[in-house]
C-alpha cells in the first residue's frame, strides 16, 4: 500500500522540486541531482562547512581547536566524535572566542588574538587550529593575519581553517578547508628534511571506537608500520612526519582524496583506496596493501591473517545471518564511501537493501551505489525526514543505518536502527568490527521490544 507522507497529502515524492534528487534503480535512467543547494524551506539533514572541517581536524588530539565565532558553533561540536586518543585529551576541550555584539560591530580580531595568547600560554599546545564561522566570514576578520602574528609570537603553528558556514551548504567544502589546513601543518619548514621510510599513512581514518588501533594491529602483524593516521589519534608531531611515508592508504575518500592527491604531487607518495568495513573489504584491502609492498613475506603473512580471522568470524556471522536473512534494510549516511561499505555488509548478512541515501554523495558515487543494488531500490540525495519516513514505510524497512537525527525517526516508526555516524562509539572496522556490526544489526532488528509495540498498536 502506498503510504502518504504525514504532511503533504497528494504530493507523492513529498516535494516535487526534489523529484530529481530521488531515483529508483532500474526504473529510470536519469542521473541523480546531488550537488544542488538545499531548497529554502526544506527540512534538510545537511550540516555546514564548519562542521565538515571540524570533524576532520578534531581528532588531532594534542592541538587546541579554537572556534572563532559566537558560542553555539563551539558548543555543538564539542567532543561530538567517537575518536579515541592514546594520549592527549586536549581535543576534547571546547575553545571559543564567544563573540559578542561589540566584536561583531568592531571586528573580532583583537579578541581572537587575546584568546590565542591566553590558551597558548596556559596550555602550551604544539599547534592551534582556528576555525572561522559564518559571522567571522561576514564581518571579514582577517584570521590569516591574526594566526600568522600569533604563530610568530609564540613560535608554534597557528593554522587558520577557512570554514565559514555560508560558503556552501555542503560539508565537502569544509573537508577541503580541513585538508588545506593539514597540508599547511605538515609542509616541512625550509631546510627541514623528513626522512623517507617504509611506513604508510592511513588517510581518512578517525579512530572511532579505536578502529585505527585495530587496523594498525593487522598491519603490524603482517610487517607493515603505520606512520600516522589522518587524523585519528594523531598528534601534531606525528602528522609532521607524514611526508616520510612510502604509501598513503585512503579510507574516507570524501574527506581525503584531495590530500592524497596533493601528497602525491608534493612528496611523490602514491595512494590507494582501501575499505576496512566488512570482512570481505578488509581482506581485499589487506591483500592490496601487501601487494604494493611486493614482499613475499608480507604477502604470506597477510594470507595467514586473513585465513585465521575469517575462520574465526565466519561462523559467528553465519549465526547472525540466520536470524537476519530476508530482513529489509535502509541506509542513510553522510558520505557515499560509507554507504557502499554498508550495502555490502548488509547483503553479507542476508539482508536486502531497499533504500540508500547520502547527504553528500557525488555523481560517480551514486552510480557505484546503484550498481550494487537490485532493481526497484530507492536512491536519494539529501533526503528530508518526510521522505525518509515515506521510504521506510513504503519499502517496509526492518532496520536502518544512519545518524543521530534518523535514529529517533526510525524508532518512532518502529524500525530498528544502527548508528553509522561520525559520533558512534563502537569499533565497526576490520574483522572484529564486522562481528560487532552484525551483532548491532541483530540486536536492534530482532529486539523483543518490537513485539510490545505491535501489541500496543494492535490494541491488545
Amino acid at each position, binding site marked *: 500500500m502506498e503510504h502518504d507522507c504525514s504532511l503533504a497529502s497528494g504530493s507523492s515524492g513529498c516535494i516535487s522540486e526534489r523529484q530529481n534528487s530521488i531515483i529508483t534503480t532500474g526504473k529510470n535512467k536519469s542521473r541523480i541531482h546531488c550537488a544542488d543547494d538545499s531548497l529554502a524551506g526544506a527540512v534538510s539533514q545537511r550540516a555546514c562547512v564548519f562542521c565538515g572541517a571540524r570533524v576532520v581536524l578534531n581528532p588531532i588530539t594534542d592541538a587546541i581547536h579554537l572556534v572563532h565565532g559566537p558560542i553555539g558553533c563551539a558548543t555543538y561540536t564539542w567532543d561530538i566524535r567517537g575518536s579515541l586518543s592514546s594520549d592527549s585529551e586536549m581535543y576534547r576541550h571546547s575553545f571559543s572566542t*564567544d563573540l559578542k555584539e561589540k566584536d561583531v560591530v568592531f571586528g573580532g580580531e583583537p579578541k581572537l588574538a587575546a584568546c590565542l595568547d591566553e590558551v597558548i600560554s596556559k596550555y602550551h599546545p604544539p599547534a592551534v587550529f582556528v576555525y572561522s564561522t559564518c559571522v567571522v566570514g561576514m564581518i571579514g576578520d582577517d584570521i590569516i593575519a591574526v594566526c600568522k602574528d600569533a604563530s610568530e609570537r609564540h613560535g608554534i603553528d597557528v593554522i587558520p581553517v577557512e570554514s565559514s558556514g555560508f560558503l556552501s551548504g555542503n560539508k565537502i567544502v569544509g573537508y577541503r578547508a580541513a585538508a588545506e589546513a593539514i597540508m599547511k601543518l605538515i609542509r616541512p619548514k625550509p631546510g627541514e628534511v623528513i626522512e623517507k621510510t617504509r611506513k604508510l599513512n592511513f588517510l581518512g581514518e578517525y579512530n572511532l571506537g579505536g578502529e585505527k588501533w585495530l587496523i594498525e594491529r593487522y598491519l603490524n602483524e603482517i610487517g607493515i608500520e603505520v606512520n600516522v593516521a589522518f587524523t585519528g589519534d594523531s598528534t601534531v608531531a606525528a602528522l609532521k612526519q607524514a611526508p616520510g611515508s612510502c604509501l598513503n592508504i585512503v579510507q574516507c575518500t570524501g574527506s581525503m582524496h584531495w590530500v592524497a592527491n596533493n601528497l602525491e604531487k608534493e612528496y611523490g607518495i602514491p595512494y590507494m583506496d582501501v575499505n576496512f568495513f566488512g570482512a570481505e573489504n578488509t581482506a581485499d584491502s589487506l591483500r592490496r596493501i601487501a601487494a604494493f609492498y611486493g614482499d613475499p613475506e608480507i604477502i604470506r603473512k597477510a594470507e595467514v591473517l586473513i585465513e585465521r580471522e575469517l575462520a574465526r568470524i565466519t561462523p559467528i556471522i553465519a549465526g547472525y545471518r540466520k536470524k537476519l536473512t530476508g530482513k529489509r534494510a535502509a541506509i542513510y549516511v553522510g558520505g557515499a564511501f560509507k554507504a557502499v561499505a554498508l550495502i555490502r555488509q548488509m547483503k553479507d548478512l542476508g539482508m536486502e537493501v531497499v533504500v540508500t541515501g547520502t547527504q553528500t554523495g557525488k555523481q560517480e558515487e551514486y552510480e557505484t551505489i546503484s550498481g550494487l543494488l537490485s532493481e526497484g531500490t530507492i536512491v536519494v540525495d539529501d533526503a528530508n525526514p518526510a521522505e525518509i519516513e515515506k521510504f521506510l514505510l513504503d519499502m517496509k524497512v526492518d532496520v536502518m543505518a544512519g545518524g543521530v537525527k534518523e535514529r529517533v525517526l526510525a524508532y518512532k516508526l518502529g524500525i530498528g536502527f544502527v548508528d553509522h555516524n561520525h559520533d558512534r562509539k563502537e569499533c565497526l572496522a576490520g574483522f572484529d568490527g564486522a562481528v560487532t556490526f552484525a551483532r548491532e544489526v541483530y540486536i536492534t532488528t530482532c529486539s523483543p521490544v518490537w513485539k510490545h509495540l505491535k501489541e500496543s498498536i494492535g490494541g491488545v
Partner: protein
Amino acid sequence: MPEGEVVHTAGKINPVKTCQPIGAMYAALGIHRCLPHSHGSQGCCAYHRMHLTRHFRDPVLASTSSFTEGASVFGGAANLKTAIKNVFEIYKPDIIAVHTTCLSETIGDDLPTIIKQSEVPEGKVVIHANTPSYQGSHITGFSNMVKAMVTYLAARDEETIRKKRVNIIPGFVNPSDMREIKRITSSLGVDMIMFPDTTNVLDSPLTAKYDMYPEGGTTVEEIRDTGNSRLTLALGAWSSNAAGAALMEKCGVPCVPLKVPIGLKATDDLIMTLKEKFDAVVPDDLTLERGQVVDTLIDTHFHYQGKKVAIYGDPDIVVPLVEFVLTMGMIPKYVITGTPGKAFEEQVGAMIEEAGIEDYIVKAEGDLFDLHQWIKEESVDLLIGNTYGKYIARTEDIPLVRVGFPILDRAVHPLMPITGYKGCLRLIEMISNALLERRDRDCLDEDYELVL
C-alpha cells in the same frame, strides 16, 4: 592544565551555555502545529535540531532558509519568502515561528517587513524573534521567542470580562516539568493556558506512526486568548519575565514573576500564589505530597547535610536549585551560569549569605574551565548540572547528578520532573543516592554496611 593563574578573561573554555536560536526553536515547538524556521544557513539548523534530538531523544523538525553566499551578500529576503511559501505548501503547519541566526542578524535582514511581504495562506500565521547568537544565550533565545508569541498573537477582547484563568509561562524546562506544573495547577481547580507547552510534543509515545505535528503544544487561538486571562505567572526570570511583561503591557494582564518551582519553597510559592489569586483550595493530595517531601528530608538529611556542592547550568534552574540545596543543609560552594546577567550573582549570593555561608563563588557568564580551576583549588562533594560536567566529574572523581540542559548521555530525564513536590523527591533521591553510592564504593571493608 596550567598551574598558578586561574582566571581567563577572553573567550570561553568549555562553555556552559549555547546560542539563542536553539532556545527559540525549543520554544516554538511548544506551539501546536508549529514548524520552527531558522533564518540562516542550514548548518545552524542542523546543529540545533541535533542537539535537541540528543537531549529529548525525539525527532525535532525545523526548516531553514538555506543561506549560501548569494543570500549573505544580497540579504535573505528572497530565501525567507520562498521558504515561507514552500513550508506552508509542503509541510502545512498552522504557524511558522521564524528565528534569526548570527548570519542573518549580521546581514541585518528586516524580518517584520519580509514577513509582511510574504505569501501567508488564509488562517495561517508567521511570527518571528530576533535571536542574535552573539548576545545572551539559548535562554535569551527562548525568552525572545516566547515574547514574540505574545507580541504577535495575544489579544484582549474589550467586550469580554477577564476569564478566571491563569497564563503560565513555564520557562526552559523539560516536558515532564511542564506536565507537573499543569497537574499542580489543575489539582487546585484553576483554569490555565500554558505557553509554550512541549508536553505531547517532545515526550510523545511510540506509535509506529510518525506525526510531524504531535498532539501537544499551545494552539494559536489559546495564545491569542491569553490576553483575556486574569493573571500571568512567569516562571523563571530569564526565560519568562519578558513575555509576562509584554502581555501586561499589551493586554493589561497582571504578571507575577516566580521561580521555576524546583524545591520546596518555590513549589510552595507557586501553589500559594494560585491559592490567593484564585481563591483556590489546596487539595489534600498536594498537602500529602508536601508532607512526604518534608518526611523524606528528615529521613535522609544526614546523607547530604554539610556536603559541598557545585551547581552550574541555566539561571532559572540553578537559582531555585541553590535555594533547595540550602533547604537540604548543603553548601553551594560554586555556582555558575553561562547566561549573562549581574542579577544572577546578586540573587544567588544573597541566598547563600542568608544561610550564613561565607566561603563561596558565584559567577554569571562563567564557563566550566572556571569551575574546574576552583575545584582544583578546593574540591566539592557533588556536582549538579548538565552532561558537560562529566569531564570534571571524572578528572576530579566527584559524583555528578545530571540536571538541566543538555543531558546527552542518559535517557528518561525528559520524562521525569524535577519540579513540584514530586520533583523534590526525585532530586533528594538523586542527590542522596549519588553520595551513598560514592560512600559504598570508597569505604573500607569494615565500613561497608547493609543498612545506611
